């Protein structure tokens, strides 16, 4: 075999990486992801003001294009409440109140789901479609893609809660053999004390979710209030 096919991981060397390393990775990634998210929605902010200023063919916003302020406001309130709950849950986690953190976490998960549901309800009842001019395009594209980001956050919250709930009896240390994710043939963990990573991941999530909720408030202000 060629010489670059001979090596395989010497797990004896790489096993048991200290969890602080991945914790730092997650923290940095949360901030980088937030900046990328900002640039993504900046495109919609630009589209909104650009098309509004041009008002091509007088079709920026025909009269009947008027989404429900009530449903939109309720959705954004659910988003903000969920982000606040994750923040409070993080404070519980720091203080060692694991049960309270999980409770707030599940509640936050539910509220994020409610926000998505309210958004869908709004699309279903709004009385205009995607073909109704510039505002309708920006409104549907923006809220639709924001909902996709909400689904991603829901996934993030869920994985944290699933780990925290599954191993709620274990304070620290590695989960039992056979519980490693990834390669099915391995029983060991390549991170030393992987359960301690719930905290840094929650820190990163709390930051990112607050940031995304902030973008949500901006979205709400531009689309409903301006």
């Amino acid at each position, binding site marked *: 075999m060629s010489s670059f096919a001979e090596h395989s991981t010497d797990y004896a060397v790489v096993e048991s990486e200290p969890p602080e390393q991945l914790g730092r990775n997650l923290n940095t990634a949360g901030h980088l992801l937030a900046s990328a998210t900002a640039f993504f929605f900046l495109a919609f902010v630009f589209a909104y003001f650009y098309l509004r200023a041009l008002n091509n*063919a007088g079709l920026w916003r025909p009269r009947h294009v008027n989404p429900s302020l009530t449903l939109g406001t309720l959705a954004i309130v659910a988003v903000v409440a969920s982000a606040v709950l994750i923040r409070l849950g993080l404070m519980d986690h720091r203080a060692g109140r694991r049960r309270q953190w999980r409770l707030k976490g599940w509640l936050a998960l539910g509220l994020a789901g409610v926000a998505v549901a309210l958004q869908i309800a709004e699309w279903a009842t709004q009385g205009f479609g995607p073909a109704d001019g510039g505002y309708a*395009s920006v409104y549907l594209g923006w809220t639709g893609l924001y909902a996709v980001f909400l689904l991603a956050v829901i996934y993030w919250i869920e994985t944290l809660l699933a780990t925290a709930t599954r191993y709620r009896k274990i304070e620290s240390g590695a989960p039992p053999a056979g519980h490693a994710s990834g390669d099915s043939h391995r029983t060991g963990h390549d991170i030393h004390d992987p359960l301690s990573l719930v905290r840094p991941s929650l820190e990163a999530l709390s930051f990112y979710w607050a940031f995304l909720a902030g973008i949500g408030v901006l979205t709400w202000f531009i689309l409903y209030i301006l």
Partner: protein
Amino acid sequence: MSANAAVPTPPRRRVVGYNLLTGLVLGVVGYYVGWWIGHHIHATSIGYFADTNQNDIAVFLGYFLSVVGFLAGLGFLSYPWARVRGYPPSLREKETAGVARYFGLCTDHKVVGIQYLIGIGVFFFIGGLNAMLIRFELLRPGGQAFPAGNYLTLVGLHGTMMMGIMSSAILGPFANYVVPLMIGARRMAFPRIEALTFWLLMAAGTLLATTIFFGGFPTGWTGYEPLNDQANSGMDSYIVFFGLVGISMLLLGLNMIATIVTMRAPGLTWSRLPIFCWGVISTASLMLLASPVLIAALLMATLDRTAQTSFFIPSAGGSTYLYQNLFWVFGHPEVYILALPGFAVVLELLPVFARKPLWGYRLAVAGMLGVTLLSWLVWQHHLFVSGINGDLRPFYMLSTELISIPTGFTFLCGMMTLWRGRIRYTVPMLFCLAWFFNFLIGGLSGVFLSDVPSDVTTHGSFFSMAHFHYTIMGGLVFTFFAAIYYWIPKMTGFQLNDRLGKIHFWTMFIAFNSTFAPLFAIGFMGQPRRVVTYPSHLQFLNDWVSVSAFVLGASMLVFLANFVWSLVFARVPAPRNPWGSRSLEWQLPSPVPVHNFDKIPVFTDDPYGYGDDDGRVPAVVPVGAPAGGGS
């Protein structure tokens, strides 16, 4: 060592399992499932193929589920699914022995680097073949081989493939491979995401090639509206391709920055960071922030083509300028995503082959960061003749011309490093020196395009085409080959043939200039880009260019022959540090063991202190905390 380190049973080699074959099968299945679903969506508010006889919803859904199936078949979904069920995080996957790991998800950054090199090479070859066909068509003034529409698709495929795939040409293969080694880390920050960026790029390139089954696309690599909206389903391949490339670049950039910020070994301060890593950081930050704008613009185009929104349709409240703006907010940083890695390679290699420390390290860093920053403020120079408000022109003209200052820093640092150096004209060094020549011409011709009065006459002509080939091919592709000749001995453990390398270099360098220098003249004489015919008095110059281009293509075959001969047949083992570099990756054995370092190194000195000694003494000492906790 730690008790839980034992690997009880090695994985069985199976044809059925998570690998490339399964991925391809599920990719095809996914496509037809999406196609089928797309034909069963009937929303009353969406008259999606009332005015045409095509169903873009079906094509987009087909592509989407094809990618999902491909990734599922490679095994990318099993980890997220394990996390949903609450299993704790892990880092490494499929880091098994043998060649099988090159054909699937593998989290070893060195495997991903080699995967990238081969994968990018394949698509680079396809894009190059398209260029050969373009030059074949232009041998005669009238149309000869391709109808005008097919010619446009050919040009679009060449441009899109090259811009999309080659954006990762240095960061994909080489940064993934050497950055962890340079900074003393055992892995990238997010190994699974690293593998994902590679496979997304491969899916993207493959889907772009399928555009020929849907009639191709007429827009060139920029995808301008309203042509984009009016084009047939072949346009969907372009949109999906660039969208996937955008996601891949975003994640690649994020991973690179996170790695360099958080995983440097003890003692590797920012002022000691290898200059290559600074180039990677600059490029990665552009990837991280510019790609989202591209993805957003393409999603808008997708909605226009499927859900009948009107982002880019002026008669329905949209604007085609919106697309031009969004595209170039991404597009200009994109050209620096292509150029900056070239700077990084040149500045990394020059000290090694001039046997001198890099002159003006801080100036070089400032230059690259300056380019990164300024590249956000210039995008409207692409719209000078689009009919933008004339008052905007001076600002964008000046901001564009300002970029030559930080670019000049890079030149200055490179030149001063060469000054009185003991230069060794190795193959990688020759490619670096060619960069100075090519990029200088590319940069100077760029001034004509940034200047409004001269841009008005040169815009959209072969002049601008010659300009960006001098910067991208002359700047990026030459340094891509410098990087290959430089790092292949470390990546594979084998030497590339030096004589063939020099033949490759000289034919490529001469043929490249012979191809693109006359195009400046052709452009000045009025031949536009993307048009299949031209006035007959330009035939001699065009034929000259075409023949030169064929020689340029042949020089790539010399490289290919060298690559295959040296790595498959001759197999001359490379010494550990053939170039006498002081950088950390060269202090490791070739090829590098999977865990990179038995012990994490500690940096004690600037890694570029080339002096009177032969430079074989590394500036690191291999001490530090023993690996793993050993619980």
